[in-house]
């Protein structure tokens, strides 16, 4: 194994640059190192101005998503040796505006997440003194997978629909909407369906499943979207057959 590898990093500073350009750094190639370690090596030893987000380094905070050789990856869980002999090309996540070097603007996702009302909606809340809402392990299993989303946004970077139609709520927000819809404690699915049917984004999803393929937590947003379409179609048909309170 060679002891160095070339890291090609996209650089962009809005005050200074018209467009991003690549800069190449030679970094040590160590078997324990992930791409994020190489970026930190550059920042600490070579060029302190290199900017990127990171935090937990254990694949759960969702900060360090980037394009690595054109694929969306969590850089804290992507080993350098998988790319030997190199080069490794690191770019900001696709489909988002770039703010600086490897940092992208993600407020669009936050806005969309709020819109799908990702919280428990109930007609009546029972007091804490009455204890928990009972939920069997099987009931938990129906939504658990969708609750594993870490908001890393790799799925948005992979999504061909989001790339073309920025109004599309997107895979993670839809998976999280479905996480609450499927939760036996929740009574808000009608409300969420009304919001989502205001825009035809979900119908644009072709179920090619890029989102599910890149998801580092096996959330299966594509599956959530398919479930959604099915419910949406049923509700739409029902609204014609039973216009007065068929829900």
């Amino acid at each position: 194994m060679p002891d160095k590898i070339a890291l090609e990093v996209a650089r962009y500073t809005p005050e200074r640059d018209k467009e991003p350009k690549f800069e190449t750094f030679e970094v040590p190639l160590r078997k324990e190192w992930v791409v994020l370690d190489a970026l930190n090596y550059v920042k600490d030893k070579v060029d302190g101005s290199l900017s990127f987000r990171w935090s937990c380094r254990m694949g759960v905070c969702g900060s360090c998503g980037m394009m690595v050789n054109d694929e969306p990856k969590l850089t804290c869980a992507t080993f350098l040796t998988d790319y030997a002999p190199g080069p490794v090309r690191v770019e900001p996540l696709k489909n988002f505006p770039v703010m600086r070097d490897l940092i992208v603007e993600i407020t669009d996702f936050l806005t969309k997440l709020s819109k799908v009302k990702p919280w428990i909606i109930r007609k009546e809340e029972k007091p804490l003194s009455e204890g928990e809402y009972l939920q069997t392990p099987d009931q938990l299993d129906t939504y658990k997978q969708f609750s594993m989303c870490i908001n890393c946004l790799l799925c948005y970077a992979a999504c061909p629909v989001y790339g073309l139609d920025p109004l599309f709520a997107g895979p993670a927000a839809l998976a999280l909407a479905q996480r609450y819809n499927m939760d036996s404690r929740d009574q808000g699915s009608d409300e969420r369906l009304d919001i989502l049917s205001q825009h035809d984004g979900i119908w644009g999803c072709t179920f090619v499943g890029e989102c599910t393929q890149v998801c580092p937590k096996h959330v299966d947003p594509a599956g959530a979207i398919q479930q959604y379409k099915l419910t949406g179609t049923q509700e739409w048909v029902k609204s014609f057959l039973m216009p007065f309170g068929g829900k």
Partner: protein
Amino acid sequence: MLDISSTDVLMVGGGGAGLRAAIAVAETNPNLNIAVISKVYPMRSHTVSAEGGAAGVARADDSLDEHAYDTISGGDWLPDQDAVEVFVKEAPLELMQLEHWGCPWNREPDGRVAVRPFGGMKKERTWFAADKTGFHMLHTLFQTSLKYKAVTRFDEFFATKLLVDDGRVQGVVAIELSTGKIQAVTAKAVILCTGGCGRIFPFTTNAAIKNGDGMALGYRAGAPLKDMEFVQYHPTGLPFTGILITEAARAEGGYMINKDGYRYLQDYNLGKPEPTPVLRSMELGPRDRLSQAFVKEFEKGRTIPGPYGAVVHLDLRHLGEKKIDAKLPFVRELCQKYENLDPVTELIPVRPVIHYMMGGVHTDINGATPLQGLYAAGEAACVSINGANRLGSNSLAELLVFGARAGRSAAAFASSQPAPQRHLLAQALDEETRLEQEFLNKTGGRERIATIREEMQKTMEECAGIYRTGPQLEHGAGKLRELQERFRSIALDDHTRPFNTELSSALELSYMLDVAESMVQCALHRTESRGAHQRSDFPARDDRKFLAHSLVKRNADGSPEVSYAPVTITRWPPAERVYGK
């Protein structure tokens, strides 16, 4: 240049404590404006990494008094017992509140919330969401917080200073990271919820963002820090990365074994080895004692050498694939990803790793600091319920209980306060000038951030590790002074404004140096051994002199000054800590 906004109650930090506090403010007084400032998006906060669970009495065979006793004895009688009583009483309600907000707690077949055993706990009372409890709690809190219209988030704003006027905290100065603009946010009350500072040490489970920001902000503004010498090593971290392997792995039945395959904890007054877990015994002993046992095994030559230091083994093989996948899926995922091994068939190499700060900003049981208008909650605070050693799964419950209490008391205080005055602007402008002169516009420095940071980390590991001595701590204190001096000659490569992450790193280093000095001074002054603070030169607990909290204040020249405050004892007089019986 300077932007100003104002709010009523301001949270610094948007993790578990900050979000719980924000919701508590909103529910206490719906007329208040609420701001959450965080240097990261809330769902990136380090609460996300907590794994094993959150403690709160849940079963008929358990009682609040037993949870209190486990916590107090686990903390080597340093916790304040009035605080512990409040904590154990409110923890189950807070955990139930999380259930109502949608937290996906594991369940019993009949649909009730399930509980699991945990280290140092005599009953099963740890609520869990597989081994991603912190992740699920944080996302539940974050998603729930989105429905409160009164909460304004300042995502990716880095707080640099508390605004103090007329003896009262009235807001913060922060950098909007996306633009680099300096912003003043005035407030009638401020709650510090920034978590811990594991990054002061080289080998830690803590995320990159854990730099003691809130502790340093409070300390610099005049609030004392408390019990800073008590630093928790978690006994089971993966070598090199420091990734945590949850205590739940032992609670589900994992064994700690040395190079001979021997369950060595039986040699350290922790009970006898049994095939299945025994509460408050062996692998379910408290973290301080388990980490200390590792050092003793190393000294006996019974650990296993590795490229990143000696290790022992955590053995889960006998649990079987089904149980591991059901109860410890994240452990398996982390081992496969980062160690290229499968715990179903292989041993996991582990070593003690810096995990948690028992100390923090000194508060009362309502989260109030001695500085008017300033509150703190979560790991950034020291109430204290953890004393000299925190029990696993108490911290997630703590951030809920005391996040909510701090939120309620800050809301009550803010409701009675006048709006902050315009002349705070002058302080904010001074802060802007400082940041420009000392960092952004400075030329001619020669020290690199990473160099000073690495020297600080090495110093702390050498002088303030699992076992400490007076001379080592003296040496460490001197070295930290030197590093503080050298920090003044720091040089930035980056002089631009948008997302200048090098500036954030420099400010974080400066916070860490202040907090590190406070730790070393507290450790130096406490000439006894208690819980996680083990002085080889003073091996016994000394209740006559040190049944007391360390309080450290910052002098005008930046040096730390240590004094003591009594521990509140209500119903459990100091006694010997007994495990394995």
